[in-house]
């Protein structure tokens, strides 16, 4: 990105980012160290440690190991019989009643998920109860480009500003949601009727933004600005794509326009795993209980995550909440193991691999000294059906505690944990779009 372009980007972010970066960060609630002792600790970045200790302070992991030194003033939490692992990184979710583009056009890179998320929605509490600590919240897949995604840490907070993940310059981070295949195709005026038209519209949009990216257009254009960020590799493309040929189309577009790509869903990605691996492109995958429900999911298999793992693809597993409830992520990872994925690989796919895909591996995704104190406390094997999540911690704060009956409701459902269907906006929209296609 050229200097002028950066200045423009910073101006764009004035309300959201650059200005806020100068506001002092709130004092960490957790300035007294907390030590979890006697736990089985699964750091993910290394082998599991039995009867070990992890110490956190000021939102950061300060010590970990069998011989970790416990500060004198530390609050000791006996974690014998418990398993502690990093908080889950959900690389594809629709919590918070998120929306994005409207039906006026198929390509709307200027819309931002952050402007639609309701941070008070109970779906966010439920995600905390499921052990999710970092989320890529995205608009839906009914468009070729439905808007900018929002990377969110599930801190105990209720504003977008306080939930945001920020870059070094203070800007709120997120990617760009794109989609191909049948979801964006439809009768709506301006929307594509075929796959070829879908690709042509996307190519035209990128090509049309080139002069702007080169600084040859003076008038500020939010849509082109975002497209330039994508082509400059500053905004990761989250590409909803299922069928093997649609996956190959996404790879072809990446080749042509040079954007960073994360394949999203990839129901048939296991069938072209070698090609995806050769392209060096990661996959954020979904494991489903049964095939079908839409044509593109007809070849869904629980073994495709294992196929991707074997091919050497960097694979994460996501919820696509509400397709899979955020509280079922460990369970879906178990299903991937049932389909042949290694246990270690499945746990990495819920944590470190997602962190790497979002470019956040320096701060989250594993339990290492210096990383964010994002962790979950389980009463047994993370991949056992019978294990219940007890606690979720984000940056040193206890954000979910099953021992509190009011919070326990968020772990099971029950009265008061929903929002009159508003959080289902995305699913309703997709289902309605599918019906209109028929």
């Amino acid at each position, binding site marked *: 990105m050229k200097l002028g372009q950066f200045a423009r980007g910073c101006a764009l972010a004035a309300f959201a980012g650059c200005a806020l970066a100068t506001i002092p960060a709130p004092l960490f609630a957790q300035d007294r160290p907390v030590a979890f002792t006697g736990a089985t600790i699964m750091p993910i970045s290394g082998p599991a440690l039995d009867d070990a200790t992890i110490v956190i302070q000021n939102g950061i992991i300060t010590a970990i190991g069998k011989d970790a030194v416990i500060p004198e003033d530390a609050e000791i939490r006996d974690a014998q019989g418990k398993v502690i692992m990093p908080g889950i990184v959900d690389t594809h979710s629709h919590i918070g009643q998120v929306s994005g583009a409207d039906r006026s056009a198929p390509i709307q890179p200027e819309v931002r998920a952050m402007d639609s998320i309701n941070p008070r929605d109970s779906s966010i509490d439920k995600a905390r109860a499921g052990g999710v600590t970092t989320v890529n919240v995205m608009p839906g897949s009914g468009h070729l480009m439905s808007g900018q995604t929002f990377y969110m840490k599930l801190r105990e907070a209720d504003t977008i500003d306080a939930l945001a993940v920020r870059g070094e310059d203070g800007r709120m981070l997120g990617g760009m949601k794109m989609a191909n295949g049948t979801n964006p195709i439809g009768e709506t005026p301006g929307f594509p009727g075929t796959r070829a038209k879908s690709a042509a519209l996307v190519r035209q949009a990128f090509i049309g933004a080139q002069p702007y990216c080169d600084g040859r257009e003076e008038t500020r254009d939010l849509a082109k600005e975002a497209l330039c960020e994508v082509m400059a590799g500053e905004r990761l493309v989250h590409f909803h794509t299922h069928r093997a040929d649609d996956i190959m189309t996404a790879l072809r577009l990446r080749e042509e326009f040079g954007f960073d790509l994360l394949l999203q869903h990839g129901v048939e990605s296991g069938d072209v795993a070698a090609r995806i691996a050769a392209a060096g492109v990661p996959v954020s995958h979904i494991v489903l*209980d049964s095939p079908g429900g839409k044509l593109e999911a007809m070849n869904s298999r629980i073994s495709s995550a294992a196929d991707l793992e074997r091919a050497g693809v960097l694979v994460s597993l996501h919820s696509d909440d509400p397709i899979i409830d955020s509280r079922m992520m460990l369970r879906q990872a178990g299903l991937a193991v049932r389909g042949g994925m290694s246990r270690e690989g499945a746990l990495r796919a819920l944590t470190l691999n997602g962190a790497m895909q979002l470019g956040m591996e320096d701060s989250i995704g594993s339990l290492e000294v210096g990383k964010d104190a994002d962790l979950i406390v389980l009463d047994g094997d993370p991949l056992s059906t019978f294990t219940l999540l007890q606690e979720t911690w984000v940056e040193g704060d206890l954000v979910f505690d099953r021992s509190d009956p009011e919070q326990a409701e968020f772990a099971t459902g029950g009265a008061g944990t929903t929002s009159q269907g508003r959080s289902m906006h995305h699913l309703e929209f997709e289902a309605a779009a599918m019906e209109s296609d028929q």
Partner: protein
Amino acid sequence: MSLRMKAIGALSAATAIFALAAPALAQDVAVRGEIVYTMAGEAISDGMVVIEDGIITAVGPTSDTALPDGIRVMTARVVTPGLIDAHSTVGLAGYLNQPGDQDQLESSSPIQPELRAIDAYNPNERLVEWVRGLGVTTLHTGHGPGALVSGQTMVVKTHGETVAQAVERPLAMIAANLGTGALESESKAPGTRSKQMAMLRGALIAAASPEKPDDGDGPATRNLQHEALREVLNGNVPLMVTAWRAQDILSALRLKEEFGIDMVIDGAADAYMVLDELREAGVPVILHPPRARQYGELENASFTTASTLSEAGIPFAFQSGYEGYVPKTRVVLWEAGVAAANGLGTQGALASITSDAARIIGMEDEIGTLEVGKHGDIAMFDSDPFEITGHVTGVVIEGVVVSENPR
């Protein structure tokens, strides 16, 4: 089973000769398990189940159980009765989710009890194979949500190339639906909950008296709708009322009281709010899948409802239900597993998809437990059945091995 045996009996002579030439009958097999959950008494350590001609002829410790000569012996860590999905739309609702494979709902009229499930079931539907591989040997399936009385349900085995081969009960229940999911749009009736009940009561009253000839003598014109509802009024089959909210469950119970009919409450997201009423009415519950999405009429649903019903002594079973989108069907093994982890435990969860489910769908004399004289329907596992990382290693239906690749 009688229907299918008739169908098999009608096969060509060539098939019969082929069967005679085989060393053992195709429907003979023995299954040995490190743990055998018979669901009729204590689990057996190192147990054996012997199936001959499709029927269980012996169950007991391996050391005490004699094997017929030449019988194939399969082995597994854990052996259970074949699983029962107590309410599904699988076979009517297909996996492609396109108009051509969605026969669970006919929306031309709100009350159509005359729609037979046997006329819509596709035994070769891929979802049937899918759930069979995951241990389901019996489906109570049929017409779905979306209409006040959507049609009939039936009981099938997940095996057989035609509905005649698969069917156990051609008419199991009549499916009714209350609440917002069964309201019609615009100015069509029913547009309110009150209207739903008024229409349902009216339909039952209209069906109560036999048809009279138009001219006073001669044969009366048959009325298929009335005939179907009379099956309910005469106590031959229950009315299965899908009701999610407490108020709709109570409306259904009022209907039962008024007409003195057998009833099964289905869905029942709010069941834990009306425990006393359900217990007093003596109705069983076919409970929603625990992972059914908790929104709209299911906003009060909980993973713990099953354990609450269990503690309250209300009989219940799990269903895969109806899914309108992805994933196209739930799997009762995995749904019961969520309940198992949320207070129900392995035994209780297993009962809800075997013995208790058999009772609720009226099949307890044939299936649901491993006992001599019952159908040789078996599921095999390489771990606790509910461990999500484990596998179903084999499935047997009436002595026929229908799946033996780990799933």
